[in-house]
């Protein structure tokens, strides 16, 4: 399958007067269209830097990124090829209602058409937020806030979603249900997703493929395809299978090997 996103030899370093901190070193990655890829790695290894580069917020110092065959400069300029980016915290603005928050992307790209706002109202209805659309974000629960943030991301019709630990601010119980919820939505809409997480079980329950990054400067250490006989409809059931346990152990081994060798 033609990859929707491919990274070739991407490197990036942070600079300050004290010196250079290499964050990414020669990352090669292919993301097939419609796949759900999770990226795991030791904390502080440059996972968020990777997403910022893919989203075009940072320019790679070396290497190249192609999104639907276009380089970063071209796809950032093309509003039809927008990449959706969900940040760690929802950052719903307290001075806007839930509805005003979710239309933010449309407002910024000057595409507040009837068609687009109808789509947003439909999303609000689908995700159980329609009754809360005129409320303030602080009146929403953690899970609802995350769903609102997802709608805000989806509103601009991205076909690639970058998820930067979007569930890490939630408590454990909410996290399980919200992550299952959001993964389900992404699968239903056939979006391609790249999820960054430090939670191994989250990675192997949600993703079709897990990419393990090494310690800083991060490189791709291992790629693992994840497949369950019982399918993905019920992420909680997936957690009970033998395959899940097997994947977890494999992943754990890959990660800890890195620790002892470093």
């Amino acid at each position, binding site marked *: 399958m033609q990859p929707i996103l491919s990274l070739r030899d991407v490197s990036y370093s942070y600079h300050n007067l004290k010196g250079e901190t290499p964050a990414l070193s020669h990352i090669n990655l292919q993301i097939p269209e419609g796949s759900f890829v999770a990226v795991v790695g030791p904390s502080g290894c440059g996972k968020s830097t990777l997403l910022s580069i893919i989203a075009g917020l940072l320019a790679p110092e070396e290497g190249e990124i192609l999104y639907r065959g276009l380089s970063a400069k071209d796809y950032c300029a093309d*509003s039809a090829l927008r990449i959706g980016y969900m940040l760690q915290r929802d*950052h719903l603005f307290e001075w806007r209602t839930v509805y005003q928050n979710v239309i933010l992307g449309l407002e910024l*790209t000057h595409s507040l058409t009837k068609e687009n706002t109808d789509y947003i109202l439909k999303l609000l209805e689908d995700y159980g937020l329609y009754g809360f659309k005129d409320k303030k974000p602080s009146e929403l629960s953690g899970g609802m806030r995350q769903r609102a943030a997802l709608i805000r991301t989806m509103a601009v019709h991205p076909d690639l979603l970058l998820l930067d630990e979007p569930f890490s601010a939630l408590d454990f119980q909410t996290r399980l249900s919200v992550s299952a919820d959001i993964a389900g939505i992404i699968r239903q809409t056939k979006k391609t997703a790249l999820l960054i997480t430090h939670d191994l079980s989250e990675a192997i329950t949600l993703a079709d493929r897990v990419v393990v990054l090494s310690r800083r400067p991060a490189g791709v250490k291992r790629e693992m395809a994840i497949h369950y006989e019982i399918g993905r409809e019920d992420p909680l059931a997936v957690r009970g299978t033998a395959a899940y346990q097997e994947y977890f152990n494999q992943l754990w081994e890959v990660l800890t090997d890195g620790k002892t060798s470093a």
Partner: protein
Amino acid sequence: MVRHPHKAPPPVSARQESFLRAHHRHHHKIALGRVFLLLLFLGLWETAAGLGWIDRFFFSSPSGILKYLGQMFADRSFFAHTGVTLFETIASFILVTVLSLLAATLLWYQNSLSEILEPYLVVLNALPKSALAPLLIVWLGTGTNTIIVAGISVAVFGSIISLYTGFCQVDPEMCKLIYTLGGSRRDALTKVILPSSVPLILSSMKVNIGLSLVGVIIGEFLAARRGLGYLIIYGSQVFQLNMVITSIIILCAIAMVFYKLIQSAEHYYKKKY
């Protein structure tokens, strides 16, 4: 548990009710305390002046002030002087607010500009503005313009610094969100920085109104023929201490009214968001 004697179920529990009662009692106590303190002060002052503990000529007295106020109302000088001071204060307050918002926005927009200007702003802020007053008189003459500029000069630099610092403290992740959604730096300013800084802007307005009043009074001391500052300086020169103290009391009242106005703007904002 204590139950209400009447049959209908009470809308609030007994404990909640006693909490509310205690809360109101506390507030009444505070308000009463404030009024009592004022009356005690006025009473002591009046008695001390009446019994000759202090010299009426130098220290005036509440009754003297009332009499003088009545006289000011009668010859309409109250409206002239208070009006001039009010006008100058409001004009410089509005200009300070607009100028400092514009300047802080520009500094946030242009990082290198803010780095270049930082030491100048700090020095200008620390400079005693009364030192500028004689210069302003030479440049602008004596009159309303000089006084408004004096009012601006006292408040504007501090206001720029505090607004700019506040703008820089807005969570950069919020701006990142704007960029990920395809927004520009200008969008970050109008959608994030300014709306999230409304409480900061209101609190800086609270400071500005006080400082503008300070600047206006300094200006009137040196370069005016009308206004409360002029009355104070004139009164002290001709040993009309009634005039001086009455003007000070009017200033207190003005400060309080301004403060209440901005406070109610704050309340309005809090209720809305």
